[in-house]
């Protein structure tokens, strides 16, 4: 046939092509930078900014301070440095948000794909989804935390225990939207001719799902995931507020927000700091998801 010396057009490697497209999305780039700053500051920040050790009497004197050079973000009602508390809180909140979102998306996508692809599973799985949607969330979480908090805490320690429990609780109670979206998408996708072509080739369902269906449901999952992070952070703060989440002295952004709530009229900055942090996280993750969705689609890429 033709001589084999013809150089095959090397694709700019998949990763590089995705990055090229991602870079063209200004919002996504901005989001990535902001989220990067947030993550770096909560991870490295505590090593750079060590709050001065105050005796209780001094701390009481210095409570409810406004921003100053000594306390860049002010102090809270017990005279604790807000900056260091914000950083410690951010570590927990971000971790809860991402891990809970990851669990929810994994469960939701799995159930959605199974329900959409296998007709026999559709009924039972979607009724299960409806059941979860119908469950009153807060009482359910309450019962879960009541039943398992001490048991888990005795195994992996109170803080890790609370973290694991909260992440799990949020994860298993917020996958339903994703499952529904994915199922709808799969129902449409599996009638596409390329799926039919794969069947005519003799591809087994597992390969059809991984090769043809999963890559094509990425976009709706990505959107659901970015919104899910925000929801997870806020649900965690609700739980902590109700005393079901982390112990009271253990800061999270949601907790700081609720602590500041009662002083909002006198010291509004106490609510503004965690509020800004949560909003920035959600916004940047949203933009990143947006950019990533475009970048992962070869039809949009290079346009």
């Amino acid at each position: 046939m033709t001589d084999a010396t013809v150089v095959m057009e090397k694709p700019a490697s998949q990763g590089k092509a995705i990055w090229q497209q991602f870079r063209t999305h200004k919002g996504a780039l901005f989001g990535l930078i902001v989220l990067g700053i947030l993550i770096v500051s909560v991870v490295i920040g505590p090593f750079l900014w060590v709050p001065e050790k105050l005796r209780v009497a001094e701390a009481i004197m210095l409570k409810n301070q406004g921003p100053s050079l000594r306390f860049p973000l002010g102090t809270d009602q017990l005279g604790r440095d807000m900056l260091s508390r914000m950083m410690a809180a951010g570590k927990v909140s971000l971790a809860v948000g991402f891990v809970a979102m990851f669990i929810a998306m994994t469960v939701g996508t799995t159930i959605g794909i199974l329900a959409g692809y296998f007709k026999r599973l559709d009924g039972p799985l979607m009724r299960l989804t409806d059941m979860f949607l119908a469950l009153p969330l807060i009482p359910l979480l309450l019962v879960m935390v009541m039943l398992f908090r001490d048991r888990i805490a005795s195994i992996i320690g109170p803080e890790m225990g609370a973290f694991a429990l909260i992440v799990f609780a949020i994860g298993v109670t917020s996958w339903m939207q994703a499952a529904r979206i994915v199922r709808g998408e799969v129902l449409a996708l599996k009638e596409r001719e390329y799926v039919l072509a794969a069947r005519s080739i003799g591809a087994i369902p597992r390969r059809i799902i991984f090769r043809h269906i999963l890559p094509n449901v990425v976009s709706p999952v990505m959107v659901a995931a970015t919104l899910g992070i925000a929801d997870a952070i806020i649900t965690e703060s609700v739980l902590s507020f109700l005393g079901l989440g982390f112990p009271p002295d253990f800061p999270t952004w949601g907790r700081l927000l609720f602590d500041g709530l009662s002083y909002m009229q006198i010291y509004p900055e106490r609510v503004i700091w965690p509020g800004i942090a949560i909003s920035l996280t959600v916004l940047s993750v949203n933009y990143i998801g947006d950019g990533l969705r475009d970048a992962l689609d070869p039809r949009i890429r290079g346009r």
Partner: protein
Amino acid sequence: MFDQPVNNLVEVSDLKMYFPIYTGIFRRHTGDVKAVDGVSFNIREGETLGLVGESGCGKSTVGRALLRLYEPTAGSVMISGENIATLDSEALRKKRPTMQMVFQDPQASLNPRMTLADIISEPLIEHTDWPVERRLERVLELMDAVGLNRRFANRFPHEFSGGQRQRIGIARALALNPKFIVCDEPIAALDVSIQAQVVNLLEDLQTRLGLTYLFISHDLSMVRHIADRVAVMYLGRIAELSPRDELFAKPLHPYAEALLSAVNEPDPNRARRERIILQGDVPSPANPPKGCNFCTRCPKAFARCHQEKPELVEVEPGRQVACFLYEDKKPAVSIGRPEAKTEHNQQGETL
């Protein structure tokens, strides 16, 4: 009939494909859409059987049921001696390489997220345990065979034109050296100049690789070009199955006659066949007429046509027709008036 009888590669007998209709709040099974209702034909090795008919007559369903992309309701499909309709899933999977399909819409039949090399090597991944290099070699070989530049191996489907995409689809179908390919309107979505290229490619591959085609189309001139024999379908049944030249010279079944009268003659000096305009609409396949499926619109229908369904019988050597007109070689007695029909089922209308 002109040459020695060749082995039949595909033998379809009494193939039925009903899609159930469920109605009411209890989703009770109240009827069937009889998309394919008792179709029998053979395809000889190395030949092209054209399958024509208007849209909705069940052409594509026949093609898909043949490869068991649908589970046929009844009937058998023998492909080189094995009944595809009843094989268990593992045996069917083993059998898949011998029968492949080229799809109608080249845009829809290629996964937009896979590169050309991935798409063409998919059958190889499924059915061989070749290492990557060997697969790539075969992919490039196939790209040469269908006339795609080797440089394009790592591009995505959306970067190609319609004709090139259809070539990708053909290359994928060829990957496992099939014997039998169902071409489900492979040219319907392409523009005319590209149609010729793709059809010539298909013909070329047929002579080189000894392929057998079932060529589904509603483009009669294209079928005339590529097919050796042609089956004309109407409402889920075959009306006439004849060798191409005989059919185009003198269609026997009244429906085939009407259908072929619609073919345009490019040469204005040639005497044009008078067009036969059928009255009325195609009955719903969920509720076909009692007698011959075509009796509601047939200009030559007589009493018996409304009572019994005609079987596909050989009336001349090599020509099979499902029409009472030819059963005893008697000419039509009475001419039915289509507008007098009370039965009037629109397509898509449920019971």
